């Protein structure tokens, strides 16, 4: 299936299992490092959001603690949130109220366990894969965990016994359920192309095709990106916490650290989605324009470099998340639903059919899954992208709530307005 002889050897032979203590120690080290980097990253992400929003709005942003860049601002915020009085409203459902922030926070953290963040390292103790838990079904695990995040929000909305919070929770569940489907469907072409659900092998496939999935499966990428925005409750899909309508949505009743768990989990989800986008569509830890890292199991400096590359890709998507938040206005609720159900889901389904047919055709032609195969996919994909964006561009996809009026209806409406203006000539309306 994978043409490169090296890779074929790597993947057909069962990997020699690491000795227990090597495995144990390396996993513990990886856990600690990933957890630390992730949590610090999420903290700095709040700062990044404030800085970038400030720059976009022509302001300076936080610059009072920790130098000109305000690098200690997250620490200051954290101290403030811990010291703050924690109010527990008397009307809440206490067990669920306490549980909700935890349930929002934990799944966001869990998904990182299976995301490969670097090329496997051929150390003197054996091949150490740069992923905390190398699950064979890593891909399915991330999807399953990502959809658990909605429980925290729904429970927060429900247990608050507050109409705004409840509306926020309802919106969030409706939104997440709708977009979950489109998200899952948009990823099926990736699986078809990789022929595997291990995230590491999806990366391998992109590295060996020398063409990242974003070029061969662009529409999948767009659907996934939009769905990821909806899943993480980010603008333009932040209806669950729409502050202008719902005060703060599902976290209206929360305060102090319990409150800040929700933003933290939002940022954690953002980081996870960005990492997934980088992994599934932008080649993961694959170093662009090189092939040394493709052989799965490399020297330490290449592993380090691939980790850096992966970090950069993830950071890029995080920036896009923030950038879009400070650019686009919020969707109206019916637009949100119609976009999810009437546009993205059918598009994703149709795309699966087209991609599956293309893959079948290319396999039938006897093409190996290598660079040529990728080029053929790119050609098909280019045509599809042009068609889809041509239709999108006609402005009939995300439409206002209207039906097209026939000339008869228009003339009838005109007649009514003229008659009305005759009835009240003085009132002027």
């Amino acid at each position, binding site marked *: 299936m994978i043409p490169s002889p090296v890779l074929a050897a790597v993947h057909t032979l069962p990997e020699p299992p690491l000795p227990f203590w090597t495995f144990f120690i390396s996993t513990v080290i990886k856990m600690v490092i990933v957890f630390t980097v992730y949590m610090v990253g999420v903290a700095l992400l709040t700062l990044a959001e404030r800085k*970038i929003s*400030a*720059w*976009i*709005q*022509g*302001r*300076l942003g936080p610059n009072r603690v920790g130098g000109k860049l305000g690098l200690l601002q997250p620490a200051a915020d954290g101290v403030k949130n811990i010291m703050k009085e924690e109010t527990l409203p008397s009307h809440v459902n206490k067990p669920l109220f306490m549980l909700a922030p935890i349930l929002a926070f934990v799944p966001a953290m869990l998904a990182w366990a299976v995301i490969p963040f670097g090329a496997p390292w051929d150390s003197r103790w054996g091949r150490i894969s740069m992923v905390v838990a190398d699950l064979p079904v890593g891909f399915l695990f991330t999807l399953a965990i990502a959809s658990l995040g909605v429980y925290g929000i729904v429970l927060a909305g429900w247990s608050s016994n507050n109409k705004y919070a409840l509306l926020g929770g309802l919106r969030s569940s409706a939104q997440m359920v709708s977009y979950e489907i489109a998200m899952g469907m948009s990823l099926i072409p990736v699986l078809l192309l990789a022929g595997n659900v291990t995230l590491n092998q999806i990366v391998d496939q992109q590295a060996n095709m020398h063409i990242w999935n974003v070029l061969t499966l662009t529409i999948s990428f767009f659907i996934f990106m939009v769905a990821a925005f909806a899943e993480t409750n980010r603008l333009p899909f932040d209806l669950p916490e729409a502050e202008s309508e719902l005060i703060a949505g599902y976290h209206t009743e929360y305060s102090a650290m319990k409150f800040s768990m929700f933003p933290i989990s939002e940022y954690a989800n953002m980081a996870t989605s960005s990492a997934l986008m980088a992994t599934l569509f932008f080649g993961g830890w694959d170093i662009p324009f090189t092939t040394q890292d493709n052989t799965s199991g490399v020297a330490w400096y290449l592993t380090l470099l691939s980790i850096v590359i992966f970090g950069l890709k993830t950071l890029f998507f995080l920036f896009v998340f923030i*950038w*879009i938040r*400070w*650019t*686009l206005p919020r969707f109206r609720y019916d637009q949100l639903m119609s976009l999810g159900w009437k546009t993205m889901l059918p598009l994703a389904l149709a795309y699966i059919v087209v991609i599956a047919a293309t893959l079948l055709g290319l396999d039938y032609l006897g093409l190996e899954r290598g660079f040529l195969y990728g080029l053929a996919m790119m050609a098909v994909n280019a045509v599809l992208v042009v068609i889809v*964006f041509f239709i*999108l*561009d*006609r*402005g009939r*996809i*995300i439409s206002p*709530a*209207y*039906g*097209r*009026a026939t000339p008869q*209806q*228009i003339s009838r*409406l005109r007649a009514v307005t003229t008659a009305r203006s005759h009835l009240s000539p003085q009132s002027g309306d």
Partner: protein
Amino acid sequence: MAINVKVLERPVDEVSYVRATLKGMARTFKHLFEQKVTTQYPEQKESISRRWRGTHRMLTTETGKAKCVACGLCPTVCPSNCIKLVPGEDEQGNRYPLVFEIDEFRCIFCGYCQEVCPEEAIHVGRHYENSEYSREGFVYDLERLTAQTHPVCEMWDPADPKGE
């Protein structure tokens, strides 16, 4: 939806969501690198006009006494009734204020008191940073008004309408 509204045919680039989004993204991206407009307040301050009407100040004679002669014009002209004046008279028959209080909270900083004052005693000043721990602290008595040192507001001069 159920309501039939007439829809105007518009050119594609006007109704396209995609193009509008891209245009917006380009705009915000440009803003990332543009000159920032923040004034970092306690360190940097915006310059204020020479005719700025802020905290009051009572000017004094060379001997350090308030110039006020308690004529009663400023409490009369004051539209917000924030000046409390109790006149007194010394042995030579010179009038002076026994009590002169301005409630800075009631004041609307119109500057009429300065305009009407025949002795050029009470002024509004080019100063705006007032803070107190209690509301009572904002009632400035005569001692406090004479102790103010900030520059006073320049009155509008018909010969030089732009104040140059």
